[in-house]
């Protein structure tokens, strides 16, 4: 049930990412709703759900974006390891790990895309990439996390309640 809801949510997030998010600009970049949703889900929900939702999210985004199918999925795979680390519960709070997860997942995603540009022969300055893409993208996604985290937390509580009855 939760995985089903999660699949609908990541599909919706991928659609929002390619259609709605380009209209919003934070720190000169567009926030990535899908990464934020997946990180919030991984922080709050269970690892087994993350195992399905992370590749599914990457697959759906890959079908909607301009990159080769599989690239978005590859860029999001480190979240699987991060989900495992999250399950160790090193800190009590869910929000702090979510912030760290969003930052790491954003870096992983953007670095993968930058690497494909480099492979295609583009000369990329590391410093410029950092200032123009990586740092603003992390900041924008962390800001977007706050409302998304609240919604996922509420939805998760609701799903647990339903299961209890």
């Amino acid at each position, binding site marked *: 049930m939760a995985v089903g809801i999660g699949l609908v949510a990541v599909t919706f997030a991928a659609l929002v990412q390619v259609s709605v998010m380009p209209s919003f600009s934070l720190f000169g970049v567009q926030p990535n709703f899908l990464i934020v949703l997946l990180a919030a889900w991984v922080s709050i929900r269970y690892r087994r759900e993350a195992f399905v939702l992370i590749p599914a999210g990457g697959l759906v985004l890959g079908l909607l974006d301009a990159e080769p199918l599989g690239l978005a999925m590859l860029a999001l*795979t480190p979240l699987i390891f991060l989900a495992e680390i999250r399950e160790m519960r090193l800190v009590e709070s869910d929000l702090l790990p979510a912030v760290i997860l969003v930052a790491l997942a954003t870096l992983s995603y953007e670095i993968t895309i930058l690497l494909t540009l480099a492979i295609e022969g583009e000369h990329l300055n590391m410093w410029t990439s950092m200032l123009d893409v990586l740092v603003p993208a992390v900041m924008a996604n962390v800001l977007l996390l706050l409302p998304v985290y609240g919604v996922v937390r509420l939805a998760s509580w609701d799903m647990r309640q339903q299961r209890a009855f």
Partner: protein
Amino acid sequence: MRVRTRTWFSLVVAVSALFIIASQFSVFDPLDNAVLIVAEPIEVGLRDASQPLADFVNNATNAGQLSDENQLLRQEVERLTSENARLQASESALNELKQLQSIRAPKQGDAFLEASVFARDPSNSKDMIAIDVGNSDSVKEGMVVLTRQGSLIGTITKVLDDSAWVTLMTDPSSAVGALIQESRVQGVVAGSLDGDLTMEFVSETADVKEGDLVLTSGVGGRYPQDELIGQVVGVEKAAQDLFQSVRIKPLADLSRLEGVLVQTGFEPREAN
């Protein structure tokens, strides 16, 4: 790290790699096309529904600017500037013709196909948009895309049956042969990661000033001649450099494209 996690991670990486390799052979193009056909109306609906919120947020972050009015004024300025540029280009071409006393072939590339933008690539390192015309409308890779007002946006880089991806000129991989209209100085307009346009390889002695218009030069054959690119907004010269750096602002607002024109009459020369 648990064995199950490692196994799952390896499996996902392997499947991703397999998909990427298969994509190079266009194996997934029919699937991509089918998904985009289904997704297009949803994406357009979502975009339209969120537009008031986007306008509110953007207006709030750019205090004092009324987005709609600004947009309309920009389009009008762009249209008039484009018209002016074309007239000046025609006048200059006519003068050249008179001087040469010879007849030049009519300008190619005047056939257009109207298209709507329905998606944008989610990566912050690339600048690409999806439009709702493709192979079935005779759209081909390399075709040039303009705004409805007539200034350059980019080129078609991926074509599916019913849709196509356009790489905008602000994309880091984009390079357009260009010239300054007033001085006819040539250079290359290149995109960048932060979305800015820079005209490179402009000799340090060239006369370039703010407000000059930048047009395509047609050199290389990948773009038609005299299409409007933008306006010079800054010139940087360093004493030790051979070239000056010219910052260009596109006349169109490339972050809010809705309708575009594909120049179907222009056949780009194959890149070597």
